[in-house]
């Protein structure tokens, strides 16, 4: 499908930011791309939009590695949260992505005065087929964090076999992003069939799709979760 110029630019900016997050996860450093140097206004807008699309994962190194985010990282993140709230008729994934960002701010920004906010509705996941469930969870993989407890994580916990089936389906369809997102969820779930071979599956997804920074990000997050390196 042909993308508009804006869409292509945005996707490129999201990929650049995801690359920076992967580098930070591997090195333990900060995510410099989340705090772009002052440039012209359009570039700043694009960077801000990229942070909003990558969502809470823009601060993933701080979340998983417990490295306090830099003040300018937080400032950009907060600005993205405020600049792009979900619209009145926004899809559930848009609402949950925004919720996850606000949650990350509350967790990582001691000066942030936002009160606990109500979770969006998650009923659409309860009635979802295993294929749709896996797709939606993969889109919301930023919520797949150790210790996270929300309606989406509870829905995933109730259906580990369905997510495992969805992971295999995504690999067979060569949908590496979905496979990586589903694999990231599976590292958190109990009751995943041993026959799945998740570790080898994640290696395979990285081998085949790891040149995509979003795939690399989810696989890196899954490995950190798997090894408990964040503890």
């Amino acid at each position, binding site marked *: 499908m042909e993308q508009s110029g*804006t869409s292509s630019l945005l996707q490129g900016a999201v990929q650049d930011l995801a690359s920076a997050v992967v580098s930070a996860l591997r090195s333990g450093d900060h995510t410099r791309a989340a705090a772009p140097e002052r440039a012209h206004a359009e570039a700043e*807008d694009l960077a801000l*939009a990229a942070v909003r*699309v990558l969502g809470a994962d823009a601060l993933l190194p701080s979340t998983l590695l417990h490295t306090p985010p830099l003040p300018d990282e937080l400032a950009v993140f907060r600005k993205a949260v405020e600049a792009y709230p979900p619209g009145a008729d926004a899809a559930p994934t848009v609402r949950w*992505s925004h919720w996850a960002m606000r949650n990350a701010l509350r967790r990582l920004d001691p000066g942030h005065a936002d009160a606990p906010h109500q979770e969006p509705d998650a009923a659409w996941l309860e009635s979802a087929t295993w294929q749709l469930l896996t797709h939606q969870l993969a889109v919301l993989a930023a919520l797949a964090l150790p210790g996270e407890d929300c309606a989406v994580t509870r829905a995933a916990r109730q259906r580990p076999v369905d997510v495992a089936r969805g992971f295999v389906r995504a690999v067979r369809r060569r949908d590496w992003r979905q496979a990586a997102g589903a694999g990231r969820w599976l590292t958190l779930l109990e009751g995943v069939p041993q026959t799945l071979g998740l570790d080898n599956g994640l290696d395979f997804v990285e081998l085949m799709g790891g040149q995509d920074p979003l795939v690399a990000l989810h696989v890196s997050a899954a490995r950190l979760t798997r090894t408990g390196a964040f503890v």
Partner: protein
Amino acid sequence: MTATEKVTKDLTGIQSADIEAALDPAEADGIFRDSRECAALALFKGGFGLLLSPPTPRPKKG
């Protein structure tokens, strides 16, 4: 504003709709593995058994 500047502005004028579309993507079309990749799967540490299950038999014509 020059034409180039206008194009740049148009291209980078991110709208909320662009962001919401990126956050609610449709599922990508499936691309199925060819035999070379099947072989790669078979060799890949020998530990990803589920993916190597044979395809569903199809009824023969005639």
